[in-house]
C-alpha cells in the first residue's frame, strides 16, 4: 500500500467515485432523523442518487484497473489510505445546517464538474457525467432552497447557517487542488482540470450565500490530501462501520 504521488486514470475515477460514496454514506445517517417527513424522503433520494453515481464510477474504475475488482471489492475491501475522496465529504454532518452547507458546496462543484466531464475522452466517464448532471441539478436546487430558508429565516437559523458555512468553507479549496493529478490526464481530455472549476463554483456559491443574507466566509483553507489517501480522522470510523459486516464474511455473497 504505497500511495502514488501522481494520479492515474483509475485513481481519478476512484476519487470521484469515493466522493459520491462517502457522501451517500453520510446522507444515509439522516434517514429517519430529518426535521420533517418530506426531508427524510428528499435526503434519502439524494443519498440514493449519490450511491448510484458511486456504483457506476467504482465499476468503471474496476474495469479500467483490469484486476477483476468490482464495485463491492473497491468499496468494502480498500482501507482509508486507499480512499481518494476529498476530505470535505467525510466529516460528520449531524446538524441540518451543516448538511445543507455541505450539499450546496458538493452539488455546485459536481454540477460544474459533470457538465465539463460530459466531454471527456473517456466515453464511460462522459456517459456517467451526463446522467449525474441531471441529478446534481436537483441536489443543488434543494440545497440552495434550504440555505435561503435558513439564512433568511429566523435569527437562530441565520446564525446556525452562517456557522455551518464557516465550518465548510476551509475544505472547498481541496476541490480545486491539482497537486495529485497527472497533468496528462487533462491534456488527453480524460479529466477536467480541477483549477478550471474554481471561478464558476465560487461565483455560484457566493451568489447563493449573499441571496440568503449571509456572508461568504473568509477563512484559511485546510491542507488538501484526500486525493492522495491522506484523510481526517473521521474516515477510518466511517469505513469501519460501512465495511464491518462484509469483512466479517470474506467470500460471501449478499
Amino acid at each position, binding site marked *: 500500500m504505497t500511495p502514488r504521488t501522481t494520479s492515474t486514470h483509475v485513481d481519478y475515477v476512484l476519487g470521484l467515485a469515493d466522493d459520491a460514496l462517502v457522501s451517500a454514506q453520510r446522507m444515509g445517517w439522516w434517514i429517519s432523523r430529518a426535521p*420533517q417527513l418530506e426531508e427524510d424522503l428528499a435526503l434519502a433520494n439524494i443519498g440514493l442518487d449519490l450511491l*448510484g453515481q458511486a456504483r457506476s464510477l467504482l465499476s468503471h474504475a474496476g474495469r479500467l484497473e483490469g484486476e477483476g475488482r468490482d464495485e463491492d471489492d473497491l468499496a468494502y475491501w480498500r482501507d482509508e489510505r486507499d480512499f481518494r475522496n476529498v476530505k470535505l465529504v467525510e466529516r460528520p454532518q449531524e446538524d441540518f445546517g451543516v448538511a445543507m452547507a455541505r450539499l450546496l458546496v458538493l452539488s455546485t462543484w459536481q454540477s460544474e464538474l459533470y457538465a465539463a466531464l460530459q466531454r471527456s475522452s473517456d466515453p464511460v466517464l462522459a456517459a456517467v457525467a451526463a446522467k449525474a448532471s441531471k441529478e446534481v441539478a436537483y441536489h443543488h436546487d434543494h440545497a440552495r432552497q434550504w440555505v435561503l430558508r435558513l439564512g433568511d429565516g429566523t435569527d437562530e437559523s441565520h446564525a446556525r447557517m452562517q456557522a455551518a458555512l464557516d465550518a465548510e468553507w476551509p475544505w472547498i479549496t481541496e476541490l480545486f487542488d491539482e497537486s495529485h493529478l497527472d497533468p496528462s490526464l487533462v491534456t488527453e481530455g480524460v479529466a477536467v482540470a480541477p483549477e478550471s472549476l474554481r471561478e464558476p463554483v465560487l461565483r455560484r456559491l457566493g451568489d447563493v450565500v449573499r441571496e440568503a443574507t449571509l456572508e461568504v466566509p473568509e477563512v484559511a483553507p485546510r491542507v488538501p490530501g484526500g486525493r492522495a489517501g491522506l484523510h481526517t480522522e473521521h474516515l477510518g470510523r466511517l469505513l469501519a462501520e460501512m465495511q464491518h459486516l462484509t469483512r466479517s464474511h470474506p467470500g460471501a455473497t449478499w
Partner: protein
Amino acid sequence: MYGNDFTAPDGPRPAPEAGGAEPASFLAVLADGGRIEPRDEMPEAYRRSLVRQIAQHAHSEIIGMQPEGNWIARAPSLRRKGILMAKVQDEAGHGLYLYAAAETLGVDRADLLDQLHDGRQKYSSIFNYPTLTWADMGAIGWLVDGAAIVNQVPLCRCSFGPYARAMVRVCKEESFHQRQGFEILHTLSHGTPAQRAMAQDAVDRYWWPSLMMFGPSDTGPDAATGHTAQSMAWGIKRFSNDELRQRFIDMTVPQAEALGLTLPDPELRWNDERGHYDHGPIDFTELFDVIKGNGPCNQERMAHRVGAHEDGAWVRDAAAAYAAKREQEAVA
C-alpha cells in the same frame, strides 16, 4: 391493520366510539358497497375511529423507518444498501400518503405527530423489536411486510375512499418489499454456513412477533378489546384477526419451505380436514407487554423520533419564517 388498534386486557382502553347518528345517506352508501368521501355525511364516531386508525398506520410507517435505517450504514453490498435506502424512502412516502388521507377527515398532521410523540397514539408493536443482524432486513421484509400486506389488502376495499386509495398504492410497494426480503433470506440461506445460521436466527426471532401483528385472538381469554365488530359493520375492517392470521400462516409456510428455513413452531402442520395449517398457541403476554411500552425498543424508538422532531424545530421555524417573509413581499 398495521398500527395496533387493540389494547392489553388490563391496559387503558381507547375512548369508546359510541354516539353520533348514522345519517341515511351514509347507511345507503355502506349498503351499496360504495365509498364514503370526505365531504359526505358520516357519523362522528366513524370519523374519529378512522382518524385513529389511519394516524396509527401512518405512525407505524415512520417509526418503521428506524429498525431498517439501523442497517443502512452497514449494508453488506452497495446494491443492498441502495435497495434498503429506497425501501426506507418508500416508508416515508407511505407515511405521507396516510397523513394526507387522515387530513381529509379534518385533522392536522402536526397534531397527530404530537399525539404520537406524547404517547396518546400508538404504532405497530413489531417495530419495538431490535434489528440485530443483517438477516433481520430479510425477515422484516418477508414476514413483517408479508403480515402487513395480508392486513392491508382488504383495506383497499375499505369504505372510506381516501384510505382505500392510499392502501392501493401502499400495497403495491409493500409487495415489492416483501419479495426483496424473501430474496435477502434466499441468498443467505444458500450462502455460507454463517449466513444460513444468521437467516434462521432472524426468522426464529421474528416469527411469533409477526403473528402477533394481527392482534389478539377473536375468541377466548385474549379476545380483542378493540373495535372489530363496529369496524366490520362500518366496512372499515373486512376480516377478523384470526382469519387474517390464518391466511398469513397458510401463505408463509410454503415460502419457508422454498427458503429451506424452518419456522419455530413444533406444532405447525397441515390439517387436511380444515384445509389450513394448524399452529401452536400464541403467547399474547409478550404482545401486551410490548404495547404497554415494555418491549425491547419502545423507549429507543420514541426517543429517536422525538429527538429528531425536537432537533428539527429550528429548521421548521426557519422555513415558516422564510415563507411568511415571501408572502409579505408578494402582498407589498
